[in-house]
């Protein structure tokens, strides 16, 4: 077990080094940050001097070394635009993204679970068929089209929900600014989280349905039937419980999709989260911020994956055998 753990940690470190190299290599390639900082009338010499002061004229390895040294101490550089440590800027935006993702996942769980179960236990039922067709269509409509439609219908035509930003926030326990605890914040959350949820929903409905169908055919469910347990108990306690483990693992893999989708959603709704910050800093050529974002997101990925692996390895020893025994 210890070797397994060490090996995973080593892999995690290796991945992080690669990510840091990649994200650093874009540092000075995304355009000229100096151009963004000065007015049109400033002379080329002054620009060059500024570039020297910023260390932009040093060699690649020198710059990387400087970057890596700082990164280990938690210093991912200073954002050109915000003039604050890049990590602080990103962490400041983290709650917004987390809240958005959290609400979307909540909606997905609340709607996708009953739908998936329904489609699995009564596959021939007209509602199930309708559900599957809807999910096929849902799967085929790209998230940005969903988001555009949402803005157009609910915000412009019907004027029900605000179309941009996060609205009012309140401080929770002095930890973060949250939009979940007041009406204005919640109304702003509605459209983005709904768009995100609609985009993720079909994936999960299908996943739950497929897994549920597999489970329903397994020996112990048949055994449960023969024992005469009630249908509701079998479906919702025994079968669903066993469906959820693979769904959660696959769901964990979807975390990357979720991050990519938040970038799209946040861009359209101007949601002041990490994804919006990322696209913004790409267009502002705020390179320290761009690479810091990559490192932070990469770090989150690596940590969650290692974690999921470890948990899975702990609870299900056959996994270790399956992937390492051969």
């Amino acid at each position: 077990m210890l070797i397994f753990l060490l090996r995973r940690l080593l892999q995690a470190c290796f991945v992080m080094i690669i990510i840091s190299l990649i994200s650093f290599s874009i540092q000075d390639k995304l355009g000229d940050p100096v151009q963004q900082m000065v007015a049109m009338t400033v002379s080329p010499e002054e620009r060059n001097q500024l570039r020297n002061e910023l260390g932009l004229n040093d060699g690649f390895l020198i710059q990387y070394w400087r970057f890596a040294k700082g990164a280990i101490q938690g210093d991912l550089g200073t954002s050109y635009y915000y003039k604050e440590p890049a990590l602080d800027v990103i962490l400041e935006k983290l709650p917004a993204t987390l809240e958005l993702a959290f609400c979307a996942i909540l909606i997905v769980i609340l709607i996708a679970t009953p739908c998936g179960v329904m489609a699995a236990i009564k596959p021939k039922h007209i509602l199930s068929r309708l559900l599957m067709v809807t999910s096929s269509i849902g799967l085929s409509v790209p998230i940005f089209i969903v988001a555009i439609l949402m803005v157009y219908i609910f915000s412009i035509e019907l004027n029900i929900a605000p179309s941009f930003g996060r609205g009012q926030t309140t401080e929770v326990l002095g930890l973060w600014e949250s939009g979940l605890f007041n009406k204005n914040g919640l109304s702003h959350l509605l459209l983005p989280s709904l768009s995100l949820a609609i985009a993720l929903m079909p994936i999960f409905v299908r996943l739950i349905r497929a897994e549920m169908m597999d489970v329903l055919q397994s020996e112990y469910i048949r055994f449960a039937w023969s024992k005469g347990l009630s249908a509701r108990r079998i479906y919702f306690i025994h079968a669903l419980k066993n469906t959820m483990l693979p769904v959660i693992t696959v769901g964990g893999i979807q975390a990357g999709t979720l991050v990519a989708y938040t970038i799209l959603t946040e861009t359209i709704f101007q949601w002041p989260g990490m994804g919006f910050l990322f696209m913004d800093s790409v267009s502002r050529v705020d390179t320290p911020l761009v690479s810091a974002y990559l490192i932070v997101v990469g770090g989150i990925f690596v940590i969650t994956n290692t974690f999921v692996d470890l948990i899975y390895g702990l609870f299900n020893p056959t996994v270790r055998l399956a992937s390492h025994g051969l």
Partner: protein
Amino acid sequence: MKIKVIIACCLALLLYNKAVATTLKIAYDTDPVSLDPHEQLSESTLQFSHLVFDPLLRWNKNGQFEARLATKWERLDSHTMRFFLRKNVVFSTGNTFSSKDVAYTIERLKKSPDFRAMFDTIDKVTMVDEYTIDVHTTYTNPLLLNIMTYVFPIDKAFYQGKDQIIKYGETFASRNVSGTGPYILDNRELGSWMELTRNPNYWDKNSKGNADKIILTPIRTDSTRLAALLSGDVDFIFPVSPIDIERAKKVSGIQLVTLPSTRILLLHMNQNRRKEFQDVRVRKAINLAINQALIVDKILKGYATPAGQLSSDRFLGHINGLEPEYDVEKALELMKEAGYEKGFRISMMAPNNRYMSDEKVAQAISAMLSRIGITVELKTLPKAQYFKEYDNRSADMMMLGWQSDTMDSNNLFEFIIACPDTNTGMGAYNASEYCRPEIDADIRQANREMNPERRLRLLQQIEWKIYNDSAVVPLYWQSLTWAAKDGVNIKDIVNDQNYPHIGDLFIEE
């Protein structure tokens, strides 16, 4: 009796409603990078300066000077101008405003990398008494007043000693602010929002401004910004994309105000990269092949003015009646005369997020040039990358927009037309690499010429030379459009420089 009570209650309620703070929510395209008014010479910094500071004088809607912190001014001699300052003005810190603050501000402007170019002309400032200053220029300068509109006096006692201007670091001035302006900054999160409250001690008691609180939010996408107004999230937005104007006009409860601006959009034809462009007939043909009126009509929906010259009609150098020409037949003939009957290939670059519909205009131009046999390889880049390519002169044809800081033609000529000279900074944005020493001489002379009559002739003469030489392709002067809910009287406070005087904004209840 009962009725009286009810009426009294209603009245009380009404009064109470009046007493409730009016909040104005504004969405604009970009927010200022720093709170330091002297760190960056940009539209957003100046918009911010008009909120929290006051200029010595400002342009009013009709293009006249309006006295603000300076009550009046007079010319003492050819090099000196005297300004009389307003009394009883206090900064938000409580310090009293006087001539020392103005002298200090101008000294600081002369040190700011962005403003230095403009303020180099000022030699020194002397304080005559507490409310009078003399500004001395190095040579006779006809544009001194224009430049003085950029002087927003800052609080000397507050900033002194910690007033360094650093482009990429955190400074005291980039985080703290003390001005005399109509609003006081409460709080802000860079890139997200900015909150201001009305200055209770504002000196201008005649100001109609009645918003107690202002919340400014930057929204980059044009359509999202408009959507925010339509859904009632904000009360006032700028700019509005020409594409959306017609639709927004149909919405009830929304008002739009459009003003022509002086920002000129133009194309540079690089004569060093392409020998074809050295032939005046080719340059003329390109000018003739581009249909400015159609671009303005179709892409900008009429919210621009087609340009046949660089100076807009507000500028001294403007020549009445010099309209853009469009004649493909004649253009083809000129191409034939020049020996390029078969046409040629050129590269072209344009930004895609800097000016209104810039990418679409560039595409339309490449289609228009293909009619006279010029095949255009067009690339459009985000502004951050575009201006790097621009400095390198990476394409044969490049697009540029220019707003004259001094509201004068000569600023255009100095940067866009003059021979490129790295020592003086002249022609820094001359991507045509077009060079006529006699024009340079005229430009230098116009910088010192005090006689308006002679100066007018000089500037018009330059404009004619550029036109006859087809040195560049002028496209159009962008129009500016603002939109707000009804009852927000924006039409009284907007101006052609896009520095709305929000301090004077009156909101009807």
